[in-house]
Structure formats: structure tokens, C-alpha cells
């Protein structure tokens, strides 16, 4: 007997451990590849960056080259497209090439990229070797100024690159700096000055251009950062603050000094970037993430690929096992007896829909009216099945009555009546009445209070948005709950209420 108990527990414990392992691995997998999180974040930000190239054709065959964002793990590209009628589109690794026959009228072409999931990068791009250092061509006087600038910079804090950046950005500007570069220089000019200065110190550096994602941004110039090759790695710096690392909102389009776009067969060309932010359901994005991670099959067979209404139904179902666990704990570990095993759970489910106080007050109203009517019914001495059927019909009538009252008096508490399960409510009324008749009002009240108490506890577990999100997003947890419930099926210790019930026996032993 004991042997058998041990082996059952052993098997179940192994099952529990395996299910925890499985849930853990699966949770890691979902977070890593599908972008799930423990927090109930329902929306994912999707950034749309649009490059608009405009030019006047010269009459030659046209070729427009626009740089694409460099593929990286920091951003995932949801979609990419071009709006350029009658152009032939060719995508290379880092460029979009649009070609067409000669045109006569003003031309507008668009390249659009949708991105999401920018995560902090460490700002270090490993690179096997540095670019060749291109020393700037400077006059002797300019070289002297540059050396002076470097000399001043070396007295500042930070590493070699930061020292230069800090100096160039000082306000009011240092005199030597004023001599070296114009006061109102563009970002690009500043970046170039930094690169030139670093070249003199034999540090290889390059320009990094891209777009800083900001809502409703429109700009003709890309944002600029610089990268320096230090300790066999490319390190990225902000050219204004000298801060190291790639900001989470910065999308790199191009490294090096090449132009961001190039038009052949056109003149007066310009490029304009605009940025837009939109929000999408995280679960919808999961499919795309899975596709990027080559995990499409497993995603296809998960619940998140189902139609939305089925997903919503499942989301509701996924909370049941947890509620059941609460019921099992209440009965077998705490030892509270309730009317019907799962009745409190169903009441709790209703409370979630009605809201706590409204639901509780309304439920009390229904039960109160029901028991009063049932007391009248019992005088008629009806047979069991017709009697409980009559109670069911009365419950429906009460709900209808409350719904109408609630609507007309604008009293939402009454309106929530419709959310309670009819049959369960009828049985509660029936049992309460029988208990009342046989064992007195006190016992009947006690039973109802215990049932509602368990319902309230269950309610607070399942109403939590985090818990509901986690039970849906990481549905393998239900397997863990299954084994916990089965293990509780072998629990032979005392119930908490028994510690009170049998207290006189323990005291005697002392």
C-alpha cells in the first residue's frame, strides 16, 4: 500500500518535473523567437520609415539607388515595399535599385520599410579589421590647428573618441575648435571633423547614417553617428554627447561616407525621410517573428494562429485549470466544503464579467429572491424534477426582471444578472432551501457563505491581468497545473479545518 503510494507519487513527481522543464523551455522559446513577454503588453510598436526621392529627369535612362537598413538583430523588418510605377525594382543586400526608361515629367519614388522590436544593442559591431585610415589632406597651418585641437582634447575626460566629441561640442566653443571648423556645421560636417581628427591620431573611424525613430518625424537629412575601430571592434558614438552605444531607436541605414541615395538620369534630386509609429497586436506579430526565426510550423500549430474569436474563447478556457487548482486547494488542503464542487469557480467566472461588487450584490439579490420564491414553492409539494425546473424558470424570470430594471433605472448592478449561470444558480437556491428546511437557516447561510468565500478567492486569482495573460501566452503551464492537481490527489495530510475540528484530541495527548 505504502509502496504503491510512493510509486504513484514518484511517477507524478517526474511528470511534474518534466512538465515544468517543458514549460520553461517553451517559455524561453516563445520569448526568444515569438516575442512573448510575461507582462500583458498587448501592443507592439511598428515603425514605418519612408524615403521619398524626388527629381527632374534629364532624358537619360533613369536609375535610382536608395540604401536599405542594414539587416540586424536589433530590428526586425516586417515589410518593405516601393511605390514607383513602371520602375523595375531590384533589391540587393543593402540597396534598393529602381530603373526605368527615360522620363520627361517630375518623378517621385518611395521606398518604405516597416520595422519593430528595437532592442538595446551593446553598440559594438565586431569587425575583423579596420578600414584603411584616410588621412585628411590638410595644409600645414590646418595641421597645426588640428594638432592643437587634439592637444586640448587630450586634457578632457573620456576615451580618445569621446575627448574629441566633447571638445567639438563645447559651449561656448573652444577657440582652437573655431579655427578648425565652422561654427554652424551640419551633423555630417561635425562627423567628418571627428573622423579627420581621429585619423591624425591613427584611429580608424567612419560615419554611420540612419534614422532615429521619433513619432511624426520628417527630415531631409539622415541622422549621423560615428564608429571608431578600437580594440579590434567597431564602437559607435553619439556625435553630440559622446555617449557610447547604439540607441534603441536608431536604425542604421549605411556605414561609411557613401551617399544615402543616388540618382542617375535626373537632376535637382532630393530625399526626404518620414517616420510613423503604429501599434499592432503582439500576438499578431508573433507569427511574423516565428517566420523570421524559421519556426513557422510550430507556430502554425499553436493556439495563436487560430482565428481571433477562437483565440478569445481559448483565452477564457486557459484560466479554468488555475481556477480548478484553487478549488482543489480549498477543498482538499484547506477543507472548506462548498455547494457543488465547481459551483464557486463558476460564480467567480461570472464575477469577472460583471465586476466584483456589482456581481456580488446582484448574486445576493438573485439568491435572496430565489430562496423566497422557493419557500413558497415548497408549500405546493411538487415532485423533485418539476420543482427544480420551476426554480430554473424562476431564475430566468428574475434575471429578466433585473435586466429590465437595470436598463431603465440605469442601474448597472441589476444588469449584471444576465452573466450568472442559470442552472448553477437554480441548484444553489434548491440546495440552500433544502438545507434551510432540514438543518435550519444557520446551516444554509453557512454553506452559501463558504461557497461565496471560495468564489471570491478564486475571483481574485483569475481576475489578475498578469495571471490571465501568462496562462494564455504560456499555455504549457496548464500541464504543470495538471500534475500539481494529480499530486494533490495523493495528499493524505490533514486539512487546515481538521486542525480545528480535531483540536480536542491533540490537547489530550499533551
Amino acid at each position: 500500500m505504502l509502496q504503491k503510494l510512493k510509486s504513484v507519487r514518484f511517477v507524478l513527481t517526474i511528470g511534474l518535473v518534466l512538465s515544468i522543464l517543458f514549460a520553461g523551455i517553451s517559455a524561453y522559446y516563445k520569448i526568444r523567437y515569438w516575442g512573448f513577454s510575461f507582462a500583458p503588453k498587448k501592443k507592439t510598436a511598428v515603425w514605418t520609415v519612408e524615403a521619398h526621392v524626388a527629381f527632374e529627369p534629364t532624358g537619360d535612362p533613369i536609375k535610382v539607388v536608395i540604401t536599405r537598413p542594414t539587416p540586424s538583430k536589433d530590428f526586425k523588418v516586417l515589410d518593405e515595399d516601393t511605390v514607383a510605377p513602371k520602375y523595375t525594382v531590384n533589391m540587393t543586400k543593402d540597396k534598393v535599385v529602381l530603373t526605368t526608361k527615360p522620363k520627361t515629367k517630375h518623378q517621385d519614388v518611395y521606398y518604405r520599410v516597416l520595422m519593430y522590436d528595437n532592442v538595446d544593442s551593446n553598440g559594438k559591431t565586431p569587425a575583423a579589421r579596420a578600414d584603411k585610415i584616410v588621412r585628411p589632406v590638410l595644409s600645414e597651418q590646418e595641421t597645426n590647428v588640428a594638432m592643437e585641437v587634439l592637444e586640448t582634447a587630450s586634457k578632457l575626460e573620456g576615451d580618445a573618441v569621446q575627448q574629441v566629441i566633447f571638445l567639438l561640442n563645447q559651449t561656448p566653443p573652444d577657440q582652437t575648435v573655431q579655427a578648425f571648423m565652422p561654427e554652424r556645421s551640419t551633423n555630417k560636417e561635425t562627423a567628418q571633423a571627428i573622423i579627420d581628427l581621429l585619423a591624425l591620431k591613427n584611429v580608424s573611424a567612419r560615419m554611420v547614417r540612419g534614422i532615429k525613430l521619433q513619432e511624426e518625424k520628417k527630415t531631409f537629412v539622415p541622422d549621423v553617428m560615428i564608429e571608431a575601430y578600437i580594440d579590434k571592434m567597431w564602437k559607435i558614438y553619439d556625435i553630440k554627447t559622446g555617449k557610447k552605444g547604439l540607441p534603441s531607436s536608431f536604425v542604421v541605414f549605411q556605414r561609411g561616407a557613401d551617399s544615402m541615395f543616388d540618382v542617375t538620369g535626373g537632376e535637382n534630386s532630393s530625399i526626404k525621410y518620414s517616420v510613423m509609429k503604429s501599434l499592432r497586436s503582439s500576438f499578431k506579430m508573433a507569427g511574423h517573428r516565428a517566420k523570421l526565426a524559421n519556426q513557422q510550423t510550430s507556430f502554425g500549430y499553436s493556439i495563436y494562429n487560430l482565428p481571433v474569436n477562437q483565440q478569445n474563447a481559448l483565452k477564457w478556457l486557459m484560466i479554468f485549470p488555475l481556477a480548478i487548482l484553487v478549488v482543489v486547494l480549498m477543498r482538499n488542503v484547506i477543507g472548506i466544503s462548498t455547494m457543488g464542487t465547481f459551483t464557486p469557480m463558476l460564480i467567480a467566472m461570472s464575477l469577472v464579467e460583471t465586476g466584483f461588487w456589482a456581481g456580488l450584490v446582484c448574486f445576493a439579490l438573485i439568491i435572496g429572491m430565489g430562496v423566497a420564491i422557493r419557500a413558497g414553492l415548497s408549500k405546493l409539494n411538487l415532485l423533485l424534477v418539476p420543482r427544480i425546473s420551476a426554480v430554473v424558470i424562476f431564475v430566468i424570470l428574475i434575471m429578466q426582471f433585473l435586466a429590465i430594471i437595470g436598463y431603465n433605472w440605469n442601474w448597472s448592478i441589476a444588469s449584471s444578472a444576465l452573466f450568472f449561470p442559470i442552472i448553477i444558480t437554480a441548484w444553489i437556491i434548491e440546495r440552500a432551501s433544502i438545507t434551510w428546511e432540514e438543518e435550519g437557516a444557520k446551516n444554509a447561510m453557512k454553506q452559501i457563505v463558504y461557497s461565496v468565500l471560495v468564489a471570491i478567492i478564486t475571483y481574485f486569482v483569475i481576475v489578475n491581468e498578469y495571471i490571465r495573460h501568462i496562462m494564455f501566452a504560456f499555455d504549457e503551464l496548464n500541464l504543470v497545473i495538471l500534475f500539481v492537481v494529480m499530486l494533490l490527489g495523493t495528499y493524505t495530510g490533514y486539512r487546515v479545518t481538521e486542525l480545528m475540528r480535531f483540536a480536542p484530541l491533540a490537547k489530550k495527548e499533551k
Partner: protein
Amino acid sequence: MFERLKSMVRPSALRAAGVLGMNARNYDIIAQNNQRSLYPLVDDKVQTKGLANKIGINTPRLIGVIEVQNKVDSFLELVKGFDEFVIKPAHGSGGKGVLVIKKYTDKEFVTASEKVLNYNEVYQHISNILSGLYSLGGRYDVAVLEEMVHFSNQFQDYSFQGIPDVRVIVYQGFPAMAMMRLATRESGGRANLHQGAVGVGIDIKTGKAIAAVQHNRPVKFHPDTKADLMNLQVPFWREHLEIAVKGYDMTGLGYLGADIVLDKFRGPMMLELNARPGLAIQIANGRGMRDVLENIKNNYPKGLNFEQRLDYVLDVAKA
């Protein structure tokens, strides 16, 4: 409520006292000793009675069984020739749905608690039994009509109305613990402990009272009759135990509770057997049952017949 919380004891204290908890009862005792397929033998009082008669256990004599609604009308014909009778559901539990008629005419029926019912009310009661109002799980049921027990004067001072009965727990064929349940005014003449009846722990070897409780608290005197409960001695004790022990042979249930009443004329009679007897008996006896059951399982001889088991228990207990 809070007072009760304060009275909570540590689990280790209960374990030391050998108290059997509900989970352990279900898992270690009932599930291991009582085969599910044997339950109908005790859940259906008609079957139980048949088996009991076969093996020679005294039970209240069966008058008749009403199985279908259109036979309800014939109950008066069935009881013809009997001065009093009892109507009970075959699948009832805890005394629910039991109607004791001690005097009647064609129109009026006087119950044990002196309530006067008319024909319709009795008819209705039988209908309710058939529709499953009192049966386990609300299944359709049959109504059993049987002879009334003539409650022995022996216990007159110990019970307020109602019939006191003896509950004996039989474990693997050996009587393990016993108690007597005495109705009180508060319990409304019923012998249910949770309704306020008095539970008296009875010594297995002698049939004498060892402790008594009402509402979980020790009592010395019956609250209504003021009789000294410690003077209680169950007469025909060996015969009581014999019925209980035979219950094991007749059903094969390793853990059962036998409810026995003492009839003035026919001696101890078995009222019913229970495959899931409760744990309140421990409180009435003032001691845990787990040790007792474990001792029986580990140290008592196997393969004895009921006579030998009875001798063994009474001798062992005497020593």
C-alpha cells in the same frame, strides 16, 4: 469563528495523537480497502437487507418496496396488518427521508415526533423518495417500507425522542471503534452529530461509555434528560459486535461502519451499513483512529472467521 482559529493545533500534534484525517481516510483507508464494485451492496438498503438475512443478521423486517410512481397509492395495502411502519429511501444517507409512522388510520398518520400528517403528505413523501430527493446524487430511487424498531427502554434516559444507535467501525473484519449516538432536543430527535446529537465513545471490549461529546465539546450529562452518560452500558455488546463483524463477511468491505439499534423484542438489529463512515467517532472516543487501524492491519491474525475474530478482539481487549 476566530475562537476556532485560535484553537487550531499543529499537524504534528494530531499526528502524535494518531488522528485519521479526511484525506488519509479517503486515500489510505477507503481506496485501499473498499472496492468500488461493492458499494451498491451497502448503498441500496434493499440489497443490504437481502444479504443480511442470508448471513443471519437481524434487520427490521421488510414490509414492501414501492418502485414506481403508480404504485404509491398502494402503500396502505402493503402495510395492512402492521400497526406501525417506517418509510425510507433505499439509497438514502444520514437518516434523510426517513418517516416513522407509529399510529395511523386511512386518513391520518402520526409520526414518531407526534406530528400528524394527512394521506396526501405521506403520498407526497413517497413520491419525493421515488424522484430521488433523498438519494445520493439525486438518482431515481425506490421507497422501502419496513417494520418499526421498538426502541428498548434500556436507553430511555439517554435519548430525547429518536432512536439511539450504535455505530461500529469495522476494519478488515475486526471491530475498531464504536460510539453511540443519542438524539437531543437540539438535534430534533435525530442522531446526527453535526446537528447537535451527543456522541458517546464506547469501549470495544466492554460496551461501556468512555467519553462523550456534543458539538465537539466533552459533556458528562445528556443535555435534555440529564442522565450521567458515563454510566451508559450497551447491553448485548457481543451481539452488537457480531452484527458489525458479520457485515464484513457479507460485503467484503475492508472499512465499514455498521449502524445498529437495540429492539425491545428482537435484540440488536442492523439498520444499515456505510462504506464511507465519517471521522467524528474519533472525537466521541477522545482518541485518534489511525493507530487502531494500523495495529489491526499489522498485528491481528488473518483468515479467521467472524466468531474467531470476535473472540480475538474481546480477548485481546481484555488483556
